[in-house]
């Protein structure tokens, strides 16, 4: 043993002059290699690395696929226009399996292995809630494209921001008056029995009560459920409107079973498009949806009066008139959410430019620059519409669409204003230390 130990180069006596010279030579060679020289000379030409926490597999896969396409399209556009602070953008993707535990691991991997500047892109609220503490501990800016109220509630940390998509609390407040005035006042809620669904449960009821309406029943459905008929008898017979919001692989089954159960004779339907994201409205068994209404963050179908920047956005991301991939008409997009990736990337760009972001040492400055944002004008950088950011709660507010299913497509019938969704902040992240 002693002999062996002596022969290793780690012991003081074992490190020979020849080995030391070899090591020095190799190190010098590495530094002289083209890559090192470039970054060594001009730190500013090094790419800005953004870690994209993507739901490539697991129950969020359809969203992940489109989040990725939207992100790629926006990043390409930003790079073609000269990048951020003169540096190109590099998107590094890691799959989180739509799993909170894996999400936290991915954040750590981004920080320790990929050495990214920030992490971005997550949708499913349980993954955000699972990953945000890791981002906070690592002091890693975490720009989520989720919808839950978790960010705005103040329960995350100063590094977690949501500047590109509205949250459920604002969404339900925006649509509640329209539902009460046009569809009915007695409402049954059907929602997933976890964080995102609970936001709908908790915030829709006060919103509809403020309009003189009433929630007559709440039907929570476990996220792992694959069959739903058994829940439908819980809907009271005096219900005017069924408000449904479901996510994950079983959404088509859910909507079909709703149709089998009620046919065309049931209560009015108001769905969050989550119940149908990435699903073709003309799928067999969905005929009964004709005449029903959906919330859409951004319209799936091209609208006759859409502005030029919306057409530009749709073309760049690669979706056709029906919101499906231009390469495959069966590959329906998650149009109502994925614009959030595009807009968030542009917010990151704006914040990096405002703060003169140069590297990970400026992360706190980056967050402060984001917090300082207020109005965002509609346009190529914000194709979904104008927005208002509240730096105290790290949450953006925007306009929502209510669409009606007519002849196998979704036509926007009402667009809410930013003011419809505003609420009193319950938190102030800016008072938290970095």
């Amino acid at each position, binding site marked *: 043993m002693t002999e062996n130990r002596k022969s290793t180069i780690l012991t003081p006596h074992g490190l020979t002059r020849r080995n030391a010279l070899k090591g020095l030579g190799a190190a010098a060679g590495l530094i002289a290699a083209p890559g090192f020289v470039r970054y060594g000379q001009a730190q500013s030409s090094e790419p800005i690395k953004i870690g994209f926490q993507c739901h*490539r*597999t*697991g*129950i969020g*896969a*359809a969203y*992940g*696929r489109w989040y990725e396409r939207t992100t790629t399209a926006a990043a390409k556009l930003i790079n073609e226009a000269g990048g951020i602070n003169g540096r190109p953008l590099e998107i590094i993707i890691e799959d989180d399996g739509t799993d909170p535990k894996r999400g936290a691991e991915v954040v750590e991997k981004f920080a320790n292995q990929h050495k990214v500047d920030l992490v971005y892109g997550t949708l499913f609220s349980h993954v955000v809630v699972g990953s945000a503490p890791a981002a906070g501990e690592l002091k890693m800016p975490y720009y989520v494209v989720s919808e839950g109220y978790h960010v705005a509630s103040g329960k995350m940390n100063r590094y977690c921001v949501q500047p590109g998509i509205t949250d459920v609390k604002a969404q339900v407040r925006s649509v509640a008056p329209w539902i009460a005035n046009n569809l009915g006042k007695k409402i049954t809620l059907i929602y997933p029995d976890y964080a995102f669904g609970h936001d709908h449960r908790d915030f829709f009821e006060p919103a509809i009560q403020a309009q003189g309406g009433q929630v007559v029943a709440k039907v929570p459905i*476990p996220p*792992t*459920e*694959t*069959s739903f*008929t*058994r*829940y*439908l*008898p819980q809907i009271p*017979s005096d219900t005017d409107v069924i408000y449904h919001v479901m996510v*994950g*692989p*079983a959404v*088509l*089954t859910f909507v079909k079973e709703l149709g*089998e*159960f*009620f*046919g065309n004779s049931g209560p009015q339907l108001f769905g969050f498009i989550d119940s149908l994201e*990435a699903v073709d409205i003309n*799928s*067999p*068994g969905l005929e009964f949806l004709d005449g029903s209404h959906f919330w859409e963050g951004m319209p799936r179908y091209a609208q006759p009066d859409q502005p030029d920047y919306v057409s530009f956005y749709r073309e760049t991301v690669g979706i056709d008139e029906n919101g499906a991939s231009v390469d495959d008409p069966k590959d329906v997009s998650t149009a109502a959410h994925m614009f959030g990736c595009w807009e968030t990337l542009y917010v990151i760009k704006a914040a990096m430019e405002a703060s003169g972001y140069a590297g990970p040492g400026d992360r706190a400055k980056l967050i402060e620059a984001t917090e300082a944002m207020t109005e965002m004008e509609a346009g190529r950088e914000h194709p979904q519409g104008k927005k208002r950011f509240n730096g105290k709660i790290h949450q953006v507010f925007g306009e929502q669409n209510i669409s009606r299913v007519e002849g196998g497509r979704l036509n926007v019938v009402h667009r809410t204003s930013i003011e419809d969704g505003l609420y009193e902040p319950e938190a102030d992240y800016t008072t938290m230390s970095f």
Partner: protein
Amino acid sequence: MAFGPYLLLATLEGLVTAAVLSLMALGLSLVFGVMRVVNVAHGEFYMLGAVLAWWFSTMLGGHPAVGFLLALVLSPLVVAAVAFVAERLVLSRLNYEPEATIVATIGLLYIIQQLALSFYGADARPVEAPFSYRIQLPWFGYSAYKLAVIAASMVMMIGTWLVLTRTKIGLVMRATQYDRETAQAFGIPVGKVYAGVFALGAALAAFAAVLIVPIQQAHYLMGHDPLLLSFIVVIIGGLGSLRGTVVAAILIGLSDGIVSMFFSPTLAKMLATFLVAMVLVFRPQGLFGAAAR
């Protein structure tokens, strides 16, 4: 909704669950009964059946029934072939040692699941039902296809029972089950019988999956829940007992349908687990299983 219609709907839903579960559990029970192999990969054979069903049904255009029937025939056959090869390549080399086969089938589970993820993708995809008739009852509407699933499952169960009890293949299988060495001494090619039984078990799971995809959807993670429920069914019914499997599947299916509708799905799962515990304590061989010899 009034109590009567409520109960009717719960029963119908429970029967659909029972129909699919009994086919699936029968495959698991058969494999254990004859080969004494606990097949942890059974749920993935089910998933593979569903994924292939999507593939076969979208290959052809025209009426959805054509694609569905093609899937109903081909999907179980392909899954059976996969299982046959897996049995020959893996399980037979392990000499069917209980511990080794459990580990091997766990490995098989992950291999099949990851292959499905790689080649089929992470999406849930629908298969169109062969017909989409909706029966309007006075209180609610119900899918005629779901009733057809119950009927198809019954036909398949009776078919399997006839094969096991009335044919030479069934006789050979039963002989292998009762006494492997003696069967071998009488010239029964035990290895081939085992491979055949493993393939048949997988085919039954795949058949159940093809029946279910028009109701649910094909997804690479869909194998977990039915696997657990099938284990619950075979433990309650008695491993290797066909009658026990059917009775337990109906029991679990109905209780799942009725309890989860009137109370909560969590309570239904708790009751099923409790029942397993009680059966294991008071009747370890299962309700209809024979005591170990």
